[in-house]
């Protein structure tokens, strides 16, 4: 069948999956007084539409920052303003100042879900389609399979269309940036990534790889002459994009400072809730939060993050190829997730996006990680009443990716790039690593299924009320740590065979 018809059918299937999930509940549904992320987005529409720009990030009588104050960069605010404008034409009650707090109705839910779908259709989905068609190699059927699995990634669907957020926009912009960089359009790529940064500050997780890749590329083309020219152009583009986004706030320095203060709240602690990162998992053994002071927590996490991120980025700086760029994106975002300050479980999506890019080259590892990332957010889904969509989308994703990408067939040592492990552990007796990896995969999936069932069905003992969330986050943490180590090893080992290397530069 022709590619375009296959592509359109897959995209339509992805839309159905998304809309099907969006028919379920959202975060904070029917839970006054604070509700949840859905109410936060609705409140931002109310604030941005009714108040002048100068008041958006300030605590005024009209704008109570304690009730879901804006804490994303200006592009989110502009997006909310556009949505509010449309909302006002349909039903002004949705964005009436003060009176619309906690507004919930079926029509409003439909409208909000539509805004997410429209944003996805405009930004995220085209980026995925173009990436899979132009930057992956293989037959056209393989490309469509990868695109389908990419679009079916459950974590993003459940968070954006279930819990309710607009991650598709920021991840979409980042993906446009990656796409442009892959095609060699560095300036456009940096502009797209700047837009992503200005939408959600968490994109900083991806900033280092972008920086090192572009810098490395400039150095490679010669720091005197073309390289310098490229560097200057990129710098100017980034500054111009930032200036354009922050234009209304640059009139007064206090405005800009307040925005920065809102988007980087350093007053909070090392972690909140149960997150699958190092500090939370360590906390089960040693109570870090009580041992160290607030400042030393900050310094500790900073130091660990830098240590974790540096090897991968330096490698990228010395070898700025697209293959290393993709790996560095995964490694960097995982490093930040594991060791950084005040990490939310939703931040794993920032590591999941680069992992989706690796579905073509390392299918088994990528889909294993993607499955684990969805699993790590299970407590959040249970709180939002999204158990059925979680089960359906995870099973669907697992089935399709294993079947379409033949992940378990291409399980030789060479394909999994396990050669480096042999070199590292040369003193151990020779084992069939591929066999071990496959079995670890089966066991891990079984463990995830078992824990999911247990968390959903069983009641924890009264003296350990958080037993299941802690078990889930610790299991996920072990998976993430293993993935982090593996992808670092891969980045430092031999690049892939020449056939794919030619295409990925």
């Amino acid at each position, binding site marked *: 069948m*022709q590619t375009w018809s296959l592509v359109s059918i897959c995209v*339509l299937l992805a839309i159905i*999956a998304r809309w099907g999930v969006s*028919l*379920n509940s959202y975060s904070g549904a029917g839970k006054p007084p604070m509700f949840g992320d859905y109410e936060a987005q609705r409140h931002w529409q109310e604030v941005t539409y009714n108040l002048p720009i100068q008041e958006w990030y300030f605590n005024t009588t009209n704008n109570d920052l304690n009730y879901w104050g804006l804490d994303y960069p200006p592009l989110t605010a502009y997006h909310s303003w556009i949505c509010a404008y449309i909302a006002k034409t349909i039903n002004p009650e949705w964005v009436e100042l003060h009176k619309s707090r906690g507004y919930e109705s079926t029509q409003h839910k439909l409208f909000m879900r539509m805004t997410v779908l429209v944003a996805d259709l405009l930004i995220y989905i085209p980026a995925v389609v173009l990436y899979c068609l132009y930057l992956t190699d293989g037959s056209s059927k393989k490309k469509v399979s990868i695109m389908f699995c990419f679009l079916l990634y459950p974590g993003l669907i459940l968070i954006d269309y279930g819990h309710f957020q607009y991650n598709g926009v920021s991840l979409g912009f980042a993906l446009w940036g990656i796409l442009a960089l892959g095609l060699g359009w560095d300036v456009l790529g940096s502009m797209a990534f700047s837009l992503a940064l200005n939408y959600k500050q968490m994109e900083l997780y991806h900033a280092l790889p972008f920086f090192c890749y572009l810098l490395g590329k400039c150095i490679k083309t010669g720091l005197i002459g073309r390289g310098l020219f490229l560097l200057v152009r990129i710098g100017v583009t980034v500054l111009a994009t930032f200036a354009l986004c922050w234009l209304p706030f640059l009139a007064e320095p206090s405005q800009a400072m307040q925005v920065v203060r809102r988007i980087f709240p350093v007053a909070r602690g090392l972690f909140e809730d149960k997150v699958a990162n190092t500090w939370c998992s360590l906390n089960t053994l040693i109570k870090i939060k009580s041992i160290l002071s607030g400042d030393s927590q900050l310094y500790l996490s900073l130091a660990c993050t830098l240590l974790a991120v540096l090897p991968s980025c330096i490698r990228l700086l010395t070898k700025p190829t697209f293959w290393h760029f993709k790996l560095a994106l995964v490694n960097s975002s995982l490093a930040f997730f594991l060791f950084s300050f005040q990490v939310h479980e939703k931040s794993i999506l920032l590591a999941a996006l680069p992992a989706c890019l690796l579905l073509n080259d390392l299918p088994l590892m990528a889909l294993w990680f993607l499955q684990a990332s969805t699993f790590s957010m299970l407590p959040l889904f249970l709180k939002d009443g999204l158990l059925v969509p979680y089960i359906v989308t995870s099973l669907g994703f697992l089935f399709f990716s294993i079947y379409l990408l033949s992940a378990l067939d291409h399980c030789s040592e060479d394909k999994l790039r396990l050669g480096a492990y042999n070199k590292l552990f040369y003193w151990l007796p020779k084992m069939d690593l591929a066999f071990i990896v496959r079995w670890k995969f089966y066991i891990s999936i079984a463990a995830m299924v078992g824990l999911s069932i247990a968390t959903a069905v069983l009641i924890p003992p009264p003296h350990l009320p958080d037993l299941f969330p802690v078990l889930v986050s610790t299991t996920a943490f072990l998976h993430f740590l293993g993935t982090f180590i593996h992808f670092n090893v891969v980045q430092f080992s031999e690049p892939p065979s020449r056939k794919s290397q030619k295409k990925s530069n």
Partner: protein
Amino acid sequence: SQQHVNVISCIRSTDFEVHRNWLAITHSLPVSRWYYENTSEWTLDYPPLFAWFELGLSQVARRFDANMLQVENLNYASPATVLFQRLSVIVTDVVFIYAARECCRCVREPKGSRDVLSRPSFVLAVLLLWNFGLLVVDHIHFQYNGFLFGFLLLSVAKHLQSQHLQGALLFAFLLNLKHIYLYVAPAYGVYLLRSYCFAQDNKDGSVRWSSFSPLRLLALGAIVTSVCALSFGPFIAMGQLPQVLSRLFPFKRGLCHAYWAPNIWALYNVLDKSLAVLGVRLKLLEEAELPPASMTGGLVQEFEHSVLPSVTPAVTLVCTLLSILPAVASIWLRPHGAQGFLRCLLLCALGCFMFGWHVHEKAILIAILPLSILAVESREDAGIFLILTTTGHYSLFPLLFTPAELPIKVVLMLMFTIFSFTALRKLHSAQGSLLHPLEVIYLLGLVAVAIACEVVFPLSPWQQRLPFLPLLVTSVYCAMGVCYAFLRLYASLLLRREEKPKQL
């Protein structure tokens, strides 16, 4: 089934309450009260075998939520109830999946290696399993059509494989599960009589009276009577047969369903209405003489036509019989084997759809699903299939009218249409294009109608004054397509070259 499960939380229709009520009736009441019970307006109007089926389901339902089995709990819809009902549809779809597999085995595979996506059996499997109409009607609107169509397709597959007794048994079951399949009973009756009971034909294809086999006729008769006895037996013993029949065939309902099925009577109604309006404008008729506008009110009731003669059930019966007579005669005089039988089945289904009394638009599926089998094998049938499917499926749009379901129905329809067009075009690519340019224009007009009805109309000022207008336009436009497909199918049957009739 992933997306089937995803739409579990969609808005439920009245059919949901209908089936819940039947679960309650069969579980809580003794058999003698089943066809007399009328606490709820949704009385039991399927044949007894379906009632036994509901009884079986109710035993499982008890584990989910026993409250749904109380007859008094009208409109009871707890989450457990919804879950159970939806799961029951999904589980009984297993029958349909098995039947689709059997049909795929009957399809001739052309020689030469092809990748999976272009093989006829794969295309047929997708066209059957992902049929937009079936998905929408069963899983969103709620019915057990997958289960029932599984029986129909399995019976057809058995006939295609020359296992006629099994096919007859399955059809007997089907008829006792839902009597709407009486539409295609003439095809079965004549075909089995002609091609099975008369074991051989003369060289020129006419009947060889001497080869009549009483044994085979007896076998068929035994099968049919035993299944009917199983189903109707208890009711005949209790002398309730007239009551059961009056429930099964309620002629009190009007000529057209609330949503007009795209058949001849929809065109007839529109003609009548426009003549009436025209007559009033031209001062030929008095406005006071006309009966009030009840036909277009969207309710199910008796009504009369104002200008053209009124249509009674007897008239529709005569028209239906006349319309299927040529097809049935054709397979008697010149049987073309099982393929001819399938064509005749389609024509019977379409004929009854076109001329029947109180036809549901969902009945178009009885024609669309078997036509898929013919479409993957012959180019001409593929062209007819594309027209019938697209218009038939579009005519189901008014069944889902809430804004939440709009993206789903549009996206599902687009998916199915894109797939059917590209897959069938690829299968028959060697023999030229599938559709005549005029047909393409007609189908594109469907898109215009869709946009007008779904997007433009709700936002326009006419919404208050003429709320039935989108339904009317949809019915009329689709009726034209369905009529056209009917005529073309007839042409393909009657003008077919003679094939050597198969020996049974």
